[in-house]
């Protein structure tokens, strides 16, 4: 569906050349929800803008739905853009138009007749759950409602690809979840390919099938979301994974315990898929002569299975503790001894 080949984007700046995107190769499949995560300035915004030709690559080619976006111009590009919709962090609605009129705008651009437009607008309003707000102006809507208008507007011309530019970054956590649910629903119902960029691992965890991690213009890690959670390779990826698996207070609790418990060890266990549902702690206590103190635990759902993490304090004879850790390892559970360094 989407193919990015050897793409490089260089911006001229006062301090010389700024490499926003550097040698990126990506293949995104039809019907996939693909996430790109990175901190601001990583180049993800530039990358997503090359998918609909708002930015042109300095080198390389971008192909979306059979069209070479990086080559085409004028009316051909405009035609292609009707099939590649975009939603934005700040919604970018026209304040001078009502909800209905905003959703109608891309249909006007596509030259759809008035009666047909009205029909389509009504369908879309229902799809995104904005019944009763048709004649409101954007200024009268909440952030979540505005993004729903943005999504309805983006879906108006039955696009093949939906690009989400930090679409939930301006929303509160609850609204973020409802918008993400809506995106998953649309993906399943319409088979739409979704590419999103974000700096929140929560968004990736909740809806993406695959993820690419970007750092200073390059893709440093790429894979299935669950695999990346299970086995993050790069330092930056580990930091992102920690955003969801390890709340702030966990670290403090562990540090506190390490200071106070001179014996035993604090261990972090990570469970993927099946393993998350095994009674591993019960077995651990039955088979080993150790005491187990549960510090903190959490299970997160991703699109392709669950992912859990558990912090425990193991106390007992050193040899017993080592035996216990070996036992856990044998259960296909990730183990990391937390040390105070």
């Amino acid at each position, binding site marked *: 569906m989407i193919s990015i080949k050897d793409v490089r984007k260089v911006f001229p700046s006062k301090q010389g050349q700024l490499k926003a995107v550097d040698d990126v190769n990506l293949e995104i499949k039809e019907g996939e929800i693909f996430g790109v995560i990175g901190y601001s300035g990583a180049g993800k915004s530039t990358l997503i803008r090359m998918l609909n030709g*708002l930015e042109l690559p300095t080198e390389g080619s971008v192909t979306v739905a059979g069209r070479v976006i990086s080559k085409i111009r004028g009316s051909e590009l405009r035609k292609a853009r009707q099939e590649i919709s975009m939603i934005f962090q700040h919604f970018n609605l026209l304040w001078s138009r009502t909800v209905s009129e905003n959703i109608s705008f891309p249909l006007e651009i596509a030259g759809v007749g008035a009666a047909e437009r009205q029909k389509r607008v009504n369908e879309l309003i229902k799809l995104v759950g904005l019944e009763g707000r048709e004649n409101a102006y954007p200024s009268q809507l909440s952030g979540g409602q505005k993004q729903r208008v943005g999504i309805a*507007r983006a879906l108006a*011309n039955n696009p093949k690809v939906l690009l989400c530019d930090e679409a939930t970054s301006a929303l509160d956590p609850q609204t973020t979840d409802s918008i993400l649910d809506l995106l998953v629903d649309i993906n399943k119902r319409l088979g739409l390919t979704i590419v999103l960029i974000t700096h929140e691992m929560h968004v990736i965890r909740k809806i993406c099938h695959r993820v690419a991690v970007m750092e200073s213009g390059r893709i440093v890690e790429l894979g299935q979301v669950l695999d990346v959670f299970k086995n993050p390779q790069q330092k930056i990826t580990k930091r992102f994974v920690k955003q969801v698996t390890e709340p702030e207070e966990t670290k403090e609790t562990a540090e506190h315990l390490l200071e106070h418990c001179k014996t035993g060890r604090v261990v972090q266990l990570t469970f993927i898929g099946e393993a998350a549902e095994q009674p591993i702690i019960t077995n651990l206590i039955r088979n080993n002569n150790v005491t187990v103190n549960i510090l903190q635990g959490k299970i997160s759902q991703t699109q392709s299975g669950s992912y859990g993490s558990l912090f425990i304090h193991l106390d007992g004879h050193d040899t017993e503790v080592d035996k216990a850790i070996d036992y856990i390892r044998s259960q296909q559970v990730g183990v990391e001894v937390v040390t105070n360094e």
Partner: protein
Amino acid sequence: MNEERYFQDIDWEEMWEATLQTLYMTGISVVATFILGILLGMLLFLTSKGNIWENRPVNIVISAIVNIFRSIPFIILIVLLIPFTMFLVKSMIGENAALPALIIGAAPFYARMVEIGLREIDKGVIEAAKSMGATTGTIIWKVLLPESMPALVSGITVTAIALVGYTAMAGVIGAGGLGNLAYLEGFQRNQNDVTLIATIIILIIVFVIQFIGDIITSKLDKR
């Protein structure tokens, strides 16, 4: 009886005719300024850095023309435009003779306000329209103009009020209207009541323009 003593010099018919002349000059020049100013302001905006028709030379030329005509004092502009006006209207007397100077004096002033109004539009909205495959024409008619309309209307209100003032100045050198009346009948013949009434009528015109402008602006603004 009193009234007659205070306003004995006033020929009300003449006053009414002068008022109509002022309204005529203001009306025509406001409409023309609105169109020409939006045209120039839109060009200034579109050719500026980072916009759809980014073009530095064109931008510099338009900007220079706008700045020059905006800087010339109106009374001097009328004199400078005499050959142009003679060519166009074939006369320097009467309301129509004032129009070229009024429009050329006001349009660049308004063009700058239009440019400022357009710059206030969120860049993201223009980007969104582009991402939907909008043509430049669609972006101008369906995004730029509607989204800046409150600024365009409040700008033309200010310009219209300035134009009322300009018509009075144009009146002094023969264009007719209330300014002409106040100067010839009021000042030169020392009939202060004529000057006073002409001033009051001009004030009323200005207040009405401001009032209408404010109402339309607040009606349009859905932010």
